[in-house]
């Protein structure tokens, strides 16, 4: 199978500009400069490149939301705040192939007539930031960034902005606030970033992987990229991260047509030490959990939706038999309770409440009616907030209970964790 991103990731030197260009890097940029801006956007639309940050919104369509007039300068923001638990794909791109991202940025900015780009990188990614900054410096030195890039008369400045480690800063309007030096929390929409974004300018926020796909699309055309996915409306390959007790945890570049079962058993080598599968969180911690018998679903966005979950950031978390689902959910809920920005009432109070109820259930102090209470609190959070963080907390909470209700009831009935856990 053809690899879009990871083909040369085994080559330690690929992150350097000389090796990258030797292996054909920045040829897509030269081609892009020979194309019209509209033609590039058209190829990306044809490619069915769906946003890799979790929502899966088609990148070409998103770009179309920019106001037509160019009176206000535009900004491209690269969301490299990879904070979704279970997700570690963008980190790989930035450490193994940073020039893929940079080339994608230059092409995208050229197509969108943008001369300013911020890469908002997660605070914990100190090492990746170093590698990325080195790559940016190289690109400036060799004329791939800065003034009059490759003599094409196109100027672009790229600034790396390192966050301070808040999950919420991965939400695009929080990213923008944080870049502006403000408290990193979501903005009320409308206005949407495409009209009023970073520093009040029309802004597009794209995920690292999304933009890193752009050079390949320009080189090989949108149709070929779309075909790679093997599923309708799901272009290209995805970097699927597998974590948990599997034989070969890691990142796999796979088409959308691959099934979750293949991801776990074929690519990741199945569960280790003879463990059996209990559940899978398929797309980062915020996506609804699937039971072991629900994994014969292909990884494309629509099929996952039909299965009641989401492709998300394609961070597959494998949960083996023997795992206490109450404890697992409790750990997740502590994360959301900690990371809720505190702005909207339902999320600020609801996440903490859910965490506290789960904590007491796991500790053998659950009360009759607690499970119903969790579901009721979830109802008061879902879809009632400025951003999707509340939804992100509710989706695992609801799905864990819907699919493993008996385990929760048993904790409360027996006033102890059947797996012998205590906090």
């Amino acid at each position, binding site marked *: 199978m053809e690899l879009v991103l990871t083909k040369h990731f085994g080559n330690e030197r690929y992150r350097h500009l000389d090796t990258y260009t030797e292996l054909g890097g920045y040829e897509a940029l030269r081609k892009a400069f020979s194309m019209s801006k509209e033609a590039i956007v058209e190829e990306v639309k044809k490619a069915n490149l769906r946003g890799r940050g979790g929502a899966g919104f088609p990148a070409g369509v998103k770009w179309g939301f920019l106001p037509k007039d160019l009176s206000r300068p535009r900004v491209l923001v690269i969301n490299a705040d990879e904070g979704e638990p279970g997700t570690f794909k963008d980190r790989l791109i930035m450490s193994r192939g940073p020039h893929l991202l940079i080339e994608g940025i230059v092409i995208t900015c050229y197509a969108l007539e943008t001369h300013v780009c911020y890469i908002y990188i997660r605070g914990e990614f100190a090492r990746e930031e170093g590698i990325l900054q080195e790559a940016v410096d190289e690109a400036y030195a060799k004329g791939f960034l800065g003034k009059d890039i490759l003599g094409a008369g196109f100027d672009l400045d790229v600034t790396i902005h390192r966050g301070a480690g808040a999950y919420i800063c991965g939400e695009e309007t929080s990213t923008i606030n944080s870049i502006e030096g403000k408290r990193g929390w979501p903005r*009320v929409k409308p206005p949407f970033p495409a009209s009023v974004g970073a520093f009040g300018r029309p802004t597009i926020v794209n995920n690292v992987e999304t933009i890193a796909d752009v050079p390949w699309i320009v080189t090989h055309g949108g149709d070929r990229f779309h075909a790679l996915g093997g599923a309708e409306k799901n272009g290209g390959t995805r970097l699927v991260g597998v974590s948990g007790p599997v034989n070969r945890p890691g990142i796999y570049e796979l088409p959308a047509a691959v099934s979750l079962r293949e991801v776990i058993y074929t690519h990741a080598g199945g569960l280790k030490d003879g463990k059996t599968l209990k559940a899978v969180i398929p797309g980062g911690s915020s996506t609804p959990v699937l039971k072991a018998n629900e994994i014969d679903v292909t990884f494309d966005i629509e099929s996952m939706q039909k299965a009641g979950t989401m492709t998300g950031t394609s961070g597959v978390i494998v949960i083996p038999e023997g795992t206490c689902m109450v404890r697992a959910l409790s750990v997740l809920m502590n994360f959301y309770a900690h*990371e809720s920005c*505190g702005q909207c009432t339902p999320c600020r109070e609801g996440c903490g409440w859910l965490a506290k109820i789960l904590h007491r259930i796991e500790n053998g102090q659950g009360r009759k009616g607690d499970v119903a209470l969790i579901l009721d*609190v979830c109802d*008061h959070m879902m879809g*009632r907030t*400025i951003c999707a963080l509340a939804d992100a907390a509710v989706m695992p909470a609801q799905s864990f209970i819907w699919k493993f209700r008996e385990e929760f009831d048993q904790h409360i009935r027996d006033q102890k964790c059947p797996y012998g856990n205590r906090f």
Partner: protein
Amino acid sequence: MPNFTLNGISVDVPDGTTILQAAKTVGIEIPHYCYHPKLSIAGNCRMCLVEVEKFPKLQIACNTHVTEGMVVKSNTEKVKEAVTGVLELMLIHHPIDCPICDQAGECGLQIYYMKYGLHKSRYALEDKVHKKKVQDIGGQIVLDAERCILCSRCIRFLQEVTHTSELEFFQRSNHSEISIFPGEPLNNNYTGNLADICPVGALTSKDFRFKCRVWFLRGAKSICPGCANGCNVEAHFKGDILYRFQPRQNDEVNQTWMCDPGRLEYKRANDARLLTPVVREDGSPRAASWEAVFSAVAFRLWETMEKDGPESVAVIASPQFSNEELYLTRKLAEEVLRTPNLGFSPRTPGNGISDDFLIKADKNPNTRGAQLLGISEEKFEDIVRKVAGGKVKALLVFGNSIADFSEEETERLLADVPFVVQVGTNEGVVSRAAHAVLPSASFVERGGTFTNHAGRVQRFWMGFPPRGKSRNAIEIITGLANRLGAGWKFAGESSVFRAITGSEAPFAGMSYESLGESGHVAGGKG
């Protein structure tokens, strides 16, 4: 002009109107905490969720603009369930210390709980997150972080109105709280507004703290007497004691704000009041009946006029008095005392602060009114010269002080005048020097109009009758004039205002009805 449907009612609204604003115009209440008409939209409280056709999720009414044909419902089960849910979440960490909270009785949480909540608590008491109570954060404000619902009105006020940004959010999730930065207390002249805009008991007034339960208070629409800006206020009182001012909305004058010094002006109506007529004979003051003091004053004025001529009588008017009272003051001087010696000074003792927002350097509510009624500042200087030169034998002083003179200067000035009469509200150097004190009603004990620095004539209303034996100054001036044979027939401030509008060009065409609550600019400029 989009037309939309709200709970089945068809409503026309101007472009750019939000659902919440539109609902207000047709009298439909959409509950909210973070929305404030004078601040930017925060959208964080989530109380104003409504159903909008074609939107799968509930939308916040405060940030959803009405579009043509939109169908909105705020009365469905889904909305009610959502609002109750948000309210429950808002209350889980609230300390419910209403019995010791000054906000009780006017608290958004109490009001909405009674309307939209009435649920039983499902939250474990031991799970409550506690935050710091009773924090003096500077200005007029006490912060109780535990009662805060984090609506950010205060933060936005300090960013958008005062531009001082002393408050910010700290921490995250359910440990979020508002606070000042370490060692940087509130530092602006508008802090009192924070207690007004705080929908709960998180920010309360130091001055009003534990003074009175709000349900005992009654209100009178009034005008702050603290400076020439004429901020519209509601004066809150119990019995004949004032407890506080709160700003009243007037977009032409003060929007919904008022300054900190102005907020404390109410104290003037309570403290060191002149409550009984006083006559001083042979240096010792004694309380007298109104009849006795009127007779004594009228006799001495008549005697002085007869003996030394009307020029030996002088009247110092006060820009603290209403247009009605100033008009009668002028009429008394011109027609009854027939003296050319009538003047006033807008200068006041102390260093008056001012800014480019609401606080004016002129600390009188009615300087412009005095000017429009033809009472002059030059004449005042003239009178002072004549007093110093011993030419004034009887001096009628309105107000509690004379210009910006110090106590010593005032004492020296009045020492050689054979007969000084004061019409005023508060004890001070003038009342101590006066031979007759005619106590007049404070701003909240009478009605009338003030003309602010911009010429806006604004009404203020009586809250309660004059305290003690003090009287409405209109009665006092009329009483004096009639005892000198004037034969005036004024009955209350409205009859005087009618006379003003009949004879004074700047006020022509005005009436109490046409002034309404927001007033009119003198000279017909709107």
